[in-house]
């Protein structure tokens, strides 16, 4: 592999150990993130399905509550809307934002909240059309509850979408960049180390060969001397072993 897809390291055994540890970490992280992405995806699918379902339901509920309003208007007259508009003070229906935790992702969720304070609306239409108006109110409260639920799903959808994207980016980064890089580094270091080892081996081989050659030469010389002695009557009375056996210093050159 080309040297630009690896970490700039000195190829030593220590570094190798470090890199190996890093690879291990990266692989583990990759696995975990994969699992997280899966968990998020499962939740995501569920939310999607529910959104589609609730949206359709919403269409129906909204239609019903619109019709309830028609009935209220029929019974109480058009002017009832002004009464309603002018009686608005503080909101009784509110939502509370809470968070739900899915695989470490915080999903904002809304909870329907009715502070239950006595509403002036209760008396609306006392003399005329009260019943349909209350029906309309109930229908609309129901609609609101559904809408709050839908809003939760929708924000969950957005948050999940975002979370899944980040997670996937991380998974991909690990899978396609970090892990290959580490692997390449390891290969590189291993390659370098192997190279060194081979050289070392060759050198040792060479030394051994040299030594063996020298040994053979010397043996041959000795044999010659012995032969001379035997034939020459040993004139010198046997050669001085120390003198004769002049061992040349071995030079390590290669």
């Amino acid at each position: 592999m080309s040297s630009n897809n690896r970490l700039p390291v000195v190829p030593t055994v220590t570094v190798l150990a470090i890199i190996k540890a890093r690879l291990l970490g990266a692989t583990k992280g990759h696995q975990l993130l994969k699992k997280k992405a899966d968990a998020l995806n499962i939740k995501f699918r569920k939310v999607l399905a529910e959104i589609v379902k609730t949206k359709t339901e919403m269409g129906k509920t909204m239609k019903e509550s619109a019709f309830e309003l028609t009935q209220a208007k029929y019974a109480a007259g058009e002017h009832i809307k002004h009464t309603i508009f002018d009686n608005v003070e503080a909101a009784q229906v509110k939502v509370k934002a809470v968070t739900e935790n899915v695989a470490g992702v915080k999903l904002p969720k809304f909870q329907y909240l009715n502070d239950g304070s006595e509403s002036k609306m209760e008396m609306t239409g006392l003399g005329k059309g009260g019943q349909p108006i209350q029906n309309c109110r109930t229908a609309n409260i129901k609609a609101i509850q559904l809408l709050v639920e839908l809003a939760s799903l929708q924000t969950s959808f957005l948050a999940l979408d975002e979370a899944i994207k980040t997670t996937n980016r991380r998974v991909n980064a690990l899978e396609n960049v970090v892990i290959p890089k580490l692997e390449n580094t390891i290969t590189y270091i291993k390659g370098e180390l192997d190279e060194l080892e081979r050289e070392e081996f060759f050198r040792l081989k060479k030394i051994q060969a040299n030594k063996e050659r020298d040994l053979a030469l010397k043996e041959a010389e000795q044999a010659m001397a012995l032969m001379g002695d035997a034939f020459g009557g040993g004139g010198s009375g046997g050669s001085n072993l120390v003198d004769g056996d002049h061992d040349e210093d071995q030079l390590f050159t290669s």
Partner: protein
Amino acid sequence: MADPSATNSADGLMIAVIADEDTVTGFLLAGVGNVDARRKSNFLVVDAKTTVPDIEAAFKDFTTRGDIAIILISQYIADMIRHLVHNYTKPVPAILEIPSKDHPYEPEKDSILSRVTHMLG
């Protein structure tokens, strides 16, 4: 979860409505309406006289004022300010497109739902 009664801001965010008169009337009847001391309300009635800049201003106001968690907007009104709705990406407040009684609901147009269907392929 924090105790809701512990802090004031935690005891509820409001629901804002941008819709036609009848839809708003219905929701007000249910009790979502809020008019504060400065006569600032959390709903906008859109009728023939309402201009697009009015709607845009209300939308921007509702999305930034902080005490609103959900904005309900009639789909045909959302269509008028589609560019704003489409570019709005924050999770809170959540934008919810609702059908209005005389405009049947079209899921394809919904900013969120179009993304949903896109996901499901």
